[in-house]
Structure formats: structure tokens, C-alpha cells
């Protein structure tokens, strides 16, 4: 049997009409037939279809030849970019018995079963293709996709196919699996929910049957048949309830036992005590023949408790999934190909892409160094700020930051959003926390359990003295009806939903408690460049003796290494795109400028003050508008660039709206020339601060915070990292850079800046929703516990009310927040905003 990838490798010789050619302009306009990537430059084509790369073409041919052309019927350009055709040898190592064992779920002499995580599955066509793998390769038996979990389960015949061949096939189709090396035992193979389903089933079964038996006694069974039948029913109920106590209630027993051993009171303790009391009492009644007990209530109670738990888990899973797999930080990366360099977003990044990583930028995924002098700062990952030097070919882990000149890397793994989020949430970066809803809820629920236990015991004692029939009912009812869950759930669910809504609009919060701080903000401080003004807009003019072509080329080569908006503008302004030259001794001083040696000439690009500190005479500026960047070559002044800063569209409106409720201030590293322009926008000239160094900015924030104000700093995260960190809420506005500032609490796409006021209003409303939910659940608890303590509620009604209250709070919180989110959309539509 000739293997698939071997056939692919032979492919160009196979005589098919796959020729490299540059097609007509109209074809170039459209995208790749397989994956939809816009076509540029050299295009591969076959059977009148155009493709962006050999990989896509191969997949197309493969599908067509095997009668799977229907793939393209499910959606235009449904494929995933495969880029290159992987060699099967690359995966040979997977057939090593030790490694193989870690990847497969099951293997015997004949068949192997394996589950792969395939994050690139994104549509119905992908599902179809992956479930039809057996048509592509004999030996593969059965494949099934779990779309929500992005998993594919494959069974294959050992004698015809190797594991490496299966992985190679998946990779060649563009569905390269994430290989998980952890031991099979360590993996959460059977998800928690499967167990919950079974517990729910057992409880439901027992509840239904016991109810069927008990209901007759409610309607006076004894009148017909005497006490004999009632006793029998009691025994049957006891038998039915045993699996419920043993299996369905298992989690409550265990949690309560763990809590008692650690001598703490958790939410589960009163529930477990209630269940135990009810079970013991009912068993006693049946065994002594005194009565039928409360088995119907007991089974019903567990059934409804588990229903509530299931609902909670499902909602929580959806939140977590959206956060980890559906949303990507609005960071962009410079992808380098043979023809050009393109900025792509994190979500478009694929294994095998070549990336340019500039000074201060983050390595988004595990990569291999291709060229450049890499000095990697892993402080983000390990907390060690010592730089690690890497040589070409070395492996660089995701989360490192390049310090120094630009490097070129090739990614070897997919981007993991959840990994990046975990880096962001590291404890070493955590800010000092003020008392918040979170801690409020914690304190509340800790006391809550004590109070509930006290009330239950009190009610039991009271009724044992007054009316002993109500004693047990009141005791159990109080324990069951009390629902700290509703209190505990209000904040995480509301804020989680709000976080998700914002993430969809390209506003990423470090964690959901940031929303609370955001709602409290009193002062908003803006950085100017890249925040209020858009980089890339406005004219750029060079003043002074015109530079030669070669000098311009060198200048561009140097400027390319920096991510500062000015440097990026200067690099872009050099026409003709001369080839980049190597830069030695690159150094960037934040707030001052960049320097480096290109083709033996020392270039300094930066502010006037910085150049003057290096004994360069800087003549008085030729114009009075825009930012200035001065250039010196070999210590000699050559001229300056003026970049006129265009204000971001609608920036004036957002400032006007914010100024109604917040104090505003502006910090800028530039000189005072634009004071007048911002004077009108900020209303008061006192709040405008120019010529600010990064340290000045930080001190300014500290001054504002001294009287106890909550300060939000909006900046680009480059020159103002310190200020972002110092502020209560640091907002990093990103446009075209991959500088993932760990100091920030919020990462925001630049096109959301004009809608900052709406974002803040949304944060405020969601905190209000949390308060409202807390209020509702407190009222519920006070009323419920009072009635239960009077012995007027039967335990089974309590068991319905209790999960119902959690469900109500969760539904209320999520529903209202989603509605608020819709209003956010509606306003955008009214304004004609671009975001859907």
C-alpha cells in the first residue's frame, strides 16, 4: 500500500496539470479556492482553480481524486491553510513505543484508538472531511468529531497504518493535532459531566418511582388496604433510595467530609447534614414501622440539587470555552513571506509561519529561531528577568519577549490563548487588591453557613419542645432551603458574561474583577501618541538636506526594529522598499530614541534632548506642528522628520462624553506644540502635561492616587508601562504591534477607543447587576429560611426552591448582562460603527 504522503511527495512528477504560474488579475483578486486566503504573487493552480500554496493544492487534489469534492459544497473556501506538505518522516518519532503509548487511548495487536485535539476545526465542512478520513486512507476505520471540544476520535488498523501516518495525514489536510504528552492517566479523559449525568439519572429514577409509591399515601392509601401495603411501600422506597445516597449524593459527602477534616464550613456541609438527617430519620421510621419516612423528598431533593449543578456547570463551561478558544487578543504580528511582510492577527497565525519579532514584542507561540540575535526575556513566564541568548535553530517558548533588534522565527506550535491568559494573570503581576465584590461574597458565604446551621438547630430545638412533628421538617428545610450558591454565583456569572461580551468587541480584560475597578474609575489619564492620535495617519515630512537612497535604506533598516509608532511611520515612509540590512548594536531607550550600526554607519534617531545629550547640535525646529524625530548619522545632525498627528476619529466626542463624569488628563512625551489643540478637548490646560518621561508619567499617576482616587491610564503600553502598572486600571491600546504589555489590565483594540465611554458605562451597569442579584438572593434566603424555620415548608419544596433560586440568579445575571451588551451593539449601529 503506497502511503498517502509518499504519493503527495511524488506529486509534481505525477503528470497532473499542477504548474506554477501567475494568473490573470481577476483571479488574483479572489481568494484561494481551498482556504480563501487572498492570492498574491505566485499562485498554484489546478483544474481552473487557484490556490495560495502547494499545501492547499495538494489537499484539493487529494479530495477530488477520492470523491470528496463535496467538501467545497458545504462552504466556499472552507479549508484550513495547509501551507506546506509535511513529510511523513517528520512524524516518524511518534511510532516510538514510549511516545506512542502516551498519545493513544487504546491499542492491541489489531486496532488503535486515539483522540486528537484539533483546534483548527471550524465549520461543518471540516467535520465532514474528518469523518470521511477512511476514504482518503485505507486502514483508517472510523472517525468521529466532537465539535464543541474540537476533538477527533480515530480508530485505525495497526497493520496498514502507523500513528505517524495518521498524524501526517491530519497535518497535510491542515488539521495538525495538538499533541498532548501528559500521561493518559493525567488527562481528564472522562469529563466531569458524564459522572453528573449518571448521578442525575439515578436520582431521577429513584425520585420518580418513590413518588409513584408515596403519592398513594398522600391520598389515603390506608383506607383501602390497611397498613400492610404502606409498610411494603416504605421498604421499596428505602431500597430505591440507597443508590441515590451512595452514588448521587457522593460528591456532597466527600466535599463535606473534606471540609470537616480541614475544620472549615463550606457550602456543602449544611446540605450533607440535611441529607443525612433526613435519611436517618426516614430509615428509622420505616425500620420500626412507624411511618413511610421522607424518601420522596430525599430523592427529589438530590434530583433538583443536581439539576441546578448541571445548569451551572453548563453555563460555566460555555464561558470558559469562549474565553479560551473563541477569542483572541487583538494583537497583530508581522508575518514574513518571500514576497512581503503582512500584519496578521493572532487568530490567523499558523504553524510554520515566519514571524518578525521586534524589540519588546512577545513570542506568541513556541517557535524556532531562524535568524537574528535573540535575547529573550522570560520574566513573564518564569519571573527571572535575566536575558537568555539563543542561537539560530534554538527553541523559544511562547511568552518570551525579544529585547534588542528584530529577529525572525518560525512557529512550531499553535497559539494558545489560554496559555497567554494564564501568563497575564500571574501573581507576580497582580495589583494590590481593594476590598471587592469577590471578597465580599467570600466573607458573606463563610458566615452564612454558620448562621444557617445555628438557625436550623434553633428551629429543631424550638419545635421539639412545642410540636415534635415539625422538628425534623423545620431542621432539614432550613438546611436545604438556604442557598449560598445564589450569593456565590452572582458575581462570577455576571462579570464572566460581561467579560465575554467585551472580548467579542476586542476589549480584553485580564480577569473579571477588573470590571469592578473599571466601574469605580474617577480619573482617566490618556497618553497621546498611539492612543488619542492614530499612528499611520497624517503626513510625514523630512526637513533638512535630503537623504540619499542608501541612507534612507539604512534608516529604514534601523527603524524596522522598533515598535514605536513613530519608528514604524518612518520605516513605512521610505519608498521603494530597499532590502533590509543587518543592524548591529541595536538599542532602544524608552522615551528617547533608537540607535544602531548599519553598514558601518552609526545611526541615531530620537528626540532633540536625547541627541543633544550626545553632543549633537540640533537646530531650532523648522515648523511648529506635529511630533519631531531627529536623525543623526555618525554623530552628525542630518535633519528631522515631522509627523503630524491626526486625532483618532471621534476621539473628541469620546473625550467630551467622558469629561462629564470623570476627570481627564493628558500625558505626552512630545513637546508643548500641541497644547492649544488639546486645550479645547480637555477643557482645562492644567491637565495637559507634555515632555513627560516614563518616570514622570508614573509619578503623575501616583500623585493622583494619593488622595484615594481610582485612576485609569490609557496608553500604548510602550513608553508608559510603568504608569499602566501603577494605575488602578491600565488600558493598553494596540493597533499594529505585538507588544503584549504584562503591566496592563485591559488590552483594547484601537478602534474601540472612540467607544471608551460606552465600555465604562457597560462596566458600571454590570456591577449594578451583580448588586441587584445579591439583593435578590438575600431576600430569597431571608424569606425562605424564615418560612422553613416555622416548619411550614416541606423538604422537597425546599429542594425545588433552592436550585431554582440559583438558576434564577444565574439566568437573571447572564440575561440582563447580555441585554446590556446588546445595547452596546445597538449604540454602535446608531453611530455607524464598524463593529457588529
Amino acid at each position, binding site marked *: 500500500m503506497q502511503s498517502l504522503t509518499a504519493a503527495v511527495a511524488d506529486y509534481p512528477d505525477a503528470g497532473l496539470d499542477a504548474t506554477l504560474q501567475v494568473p490573470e488579475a481577476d483571479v488574483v483578486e479572489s481568494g484561494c479556492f481551498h482556504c480563501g486566503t487572498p492570492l498574491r504573487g505566485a499562485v498554484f493552480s489546478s483544474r481552473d482553480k487557484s490556490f495560495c500554496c502547494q499545501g492547499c493544492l495538494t489537499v484539493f487534489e487529494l479530495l477530488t481524486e477520492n*470523491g470528496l469534492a463535496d467538501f467545497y459544497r458545504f462552504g466556499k473556501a472552507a479549508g484550513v491553510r495547509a501551507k506546506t506538505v509535511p513529510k511523513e518522516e517528520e512524524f516518524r518519532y511518534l511510532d516510538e513505543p514510549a511516545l506512542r503509548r502516551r498519545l493513544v487511548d487504546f491499542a492491541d495487536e489489531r486496532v488503535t484508538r486515539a483522540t486528537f485535539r484539533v483546534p483548527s476545526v471550524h465549520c461543518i465542512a471540516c467535520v465532514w472531511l474528518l469523518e470521511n478520513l*477512511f476514504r482518503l486512507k485505507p486502514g483508517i*476505520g472510523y472517525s468521529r468529531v466532537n465539535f464543541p471540544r474540537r476533538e477527533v476520535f480515530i480508530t485505525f488498523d495497526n497493520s496498514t497504518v502507523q500513528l505517524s501516518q495518521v498524524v501526517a495525514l491530519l497535518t497535510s489536510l491542515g488539521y495538525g493535532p495538538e499533541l498532548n504528552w501528559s500521561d493518559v492517566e493525567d488527562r481528564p479523559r472522562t469529563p466531569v459531566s*458524564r459522572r453528573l*449525568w449518571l448521578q442525575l439519572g439515578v436520582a431521577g*429514577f429513584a425520585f420518580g*418511582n418513590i413518588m409513584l409509591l408515596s403519592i398513594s399515601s398522600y391520598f389515603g392509601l390506608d383506607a383501602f388496604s390497611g397498613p400492610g*401495603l404502606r409498610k411494603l411501600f416504605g421498604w421499596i422506597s428505602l431500597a430505591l433510595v440507597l443508590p441515590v445516597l451512595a452514588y448521587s449524593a457522593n460528591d456532597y459527602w466527600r466535599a463535606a467530609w473534606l471540609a470537616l477534616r480541614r475544620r472549615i464550613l463550606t457550602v456543602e456541609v449544611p446540605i450533607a447534614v440535611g441529607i443525612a438527617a433526613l435519611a436517618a430519620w426516614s430509615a428509622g421510621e420505616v425500620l420500626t414501622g412507624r411511618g413511610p419516612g421522607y424518601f420522596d423528598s430525599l430523592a427529589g431533593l438530590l434530583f433538583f440539587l443536581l439539576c441546578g449543578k448541571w445548569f451551572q456547570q453548563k453555563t460555566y463551561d460555555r464561558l470558559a470555552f469562549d474565553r479560551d478558544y473563541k477569542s483572541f487578543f487583538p494583537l497583530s504580528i508581522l508575518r514574513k513571506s518571500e514576497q512581503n511582510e503582512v500584519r496578521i492577527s493572532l487568530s490567523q497565525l499558523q504553524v510554520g509561519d515566519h514571524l518578525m519579532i521586534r524589540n519588546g514584542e512577545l513570542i506568541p507561540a513556541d517557535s524556532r529561531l531562524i535568524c537574528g540575535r535573540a535575547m529573550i526575556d522570560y520574566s513573564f513566564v518564569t519571573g527571572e528577568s535575566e536575558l537568555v541568548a539563543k542561537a539560530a535553530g534554538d527553541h523559544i517558548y511562547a511568552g518570551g519577549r525579544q529585547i534588542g533588534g528584530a529577529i525572525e522565527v518560525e512557529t512550531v506550535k499553535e497559539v494558545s490563548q489560554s496559555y497567554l491568559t494564564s501568563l497575564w494573570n500571574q501573581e507576580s503581576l497582580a495589583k494590590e487588591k481593594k476590598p471587592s465584590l469577590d471578597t465580599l461574597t467570600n466573607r458573606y458565604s463563610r458566615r452564612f453557613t454558620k448562621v444557617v446551621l445555628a438557625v436550623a438547630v434553633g428551629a429543631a430545638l424550638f419545635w421539639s419542645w412545642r410540636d415534635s412533628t415539625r422538628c425534623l421538617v423545620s431542621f432539614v428545610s432550613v438546611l436545604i432551603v438556604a442557598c449560598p450558591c445564589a450569593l456565590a454565583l452572582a458575581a462570577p456569572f455576571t462579570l464572566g458574561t460581561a467579560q465575554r461580551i467585551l472580548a467579542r468587541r476586542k476589549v480584553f480584560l485580564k480577569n473579571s474583577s477588573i470590571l469592578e475597578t473599571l466601574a469605580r474609575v474617577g480619573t482617566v489619564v490618556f497618553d497621546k501618541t498611539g492612543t488619542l492620535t492614530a499612528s499611520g495617519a497624517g503626513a510625514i515630512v523630512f526637513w533638512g538636506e535630503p537623504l540619499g537612497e542608501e541612507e534612507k535604506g539604512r534608516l529604514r533598516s534601523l527603524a524596522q526594529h522598533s515598535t514605536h509608532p513613530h519608528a514604524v511611520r518612518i520605516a513605512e515612509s521610505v519608498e521603494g522598499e530597499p532590502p533590509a540590512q543587518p543592524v548591529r548594536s541595536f538599542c532602544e531607550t524608552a522615551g528617547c530614541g533608537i540607535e544602531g550600526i548599519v553598514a558601518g554607519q552609526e545611526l541615531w534617531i530620537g528626540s532633540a534632548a536625547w541627541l543633544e545629550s550626545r553632543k549633537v547640535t540640533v537646530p531650532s525646529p523648522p515648523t511648529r506642528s506635529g511630533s519631531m524625530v531627529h536623525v543623526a548619522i555618525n554623530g552628525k545632525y542630518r535633519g528631522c522628520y515631522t509627523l503630524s498627528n491626526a486625532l483618532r476619529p471621534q476621539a473628541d466626542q469620546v473625550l467630551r462624553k467622558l469629561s462629564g463624569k470623570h476627570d481627564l488628563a493628558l500625558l505626552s512625551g512630545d513637546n508643548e506644540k500641541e497644547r492649544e489643540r488639546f486645550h479645547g478637548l480637555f477643557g482645562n490646560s492644567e491637565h495637559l502635561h507634555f515632555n513627560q518621561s516614563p518616570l514622570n508619567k508614573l509619578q503623575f499617576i501616583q500623585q493622583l492616587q494619593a488622595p484615594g482616587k481610582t485612576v485609569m491610564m490609557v496608553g500604548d503600553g510602550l513608553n508608559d508601562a510603568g504608569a499602566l502598572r501603577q494605575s488602578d486600571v491600565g488600558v493598553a491600546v494596540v493597533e499594529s504591534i505585538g507588544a503584549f504589555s504584562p503591566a496592563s489590565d485591559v488590552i483594547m483594540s484601537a478602534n474601540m477607543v472612540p467607544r471608551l465611554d460606552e465600555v465604562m458605562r457597560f462596566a458600571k451597569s454590570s456591577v449594578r447587576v451583580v448588586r441587584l442579584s445579591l439583593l435578590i438572593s438575600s431576600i430569597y434566603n431571608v424569606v425562605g429560611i424564615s418560612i422553613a424555620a416555622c416548619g411550614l415548608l416541606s423538604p422537597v419544596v425546599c429542594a425545588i426552591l433552592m436550585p431554582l433560586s440559583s438558576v434564577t440568579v444565574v439566568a437573571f445575571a447572564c440575561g440582563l448582562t447580555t441585554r446590556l451588551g446588546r445595547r452596546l451593539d445597538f449604540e454602535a449601529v446608531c453611530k455607524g460603527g464598524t463593529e457588529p
Partner: protein
Amino acid sequence: MIVIFLLIPLSIGLAAVFLLGFIWAVRSGQYEDTCTPALRPLMEDNHPKKKEKEKE
């Protein structure tokens, strides 16, 4: 009334069968993914070859 001694085991037995069915369904993973199966009928193709391939 004696018939109740027949009916009760019958009703519980029937319910037990449903419970076993449910347990089997959960164990075989039918509750793990409630999204993809809904997509499958949409992509049933009308290929004549389909029947023999389905055998796998």
C-alpha cells in the same frame, strides 16, 4: 388489589430498563457532544457510493 404485587415490580422493572438505557447512552458518550450530531444529517451526501462506504 392483589394485582398491585404484579404491577409494582413491573413498573419498577420498566423504569429500571429505561435507567439502564440512559446509563448506556451516557457511557457511550452520547451526552458529551450534543452539537455535532445535529450537523451530520446536513452533510449526508447523495453519493451512490455512500452505502458501501458506510459499512466501515
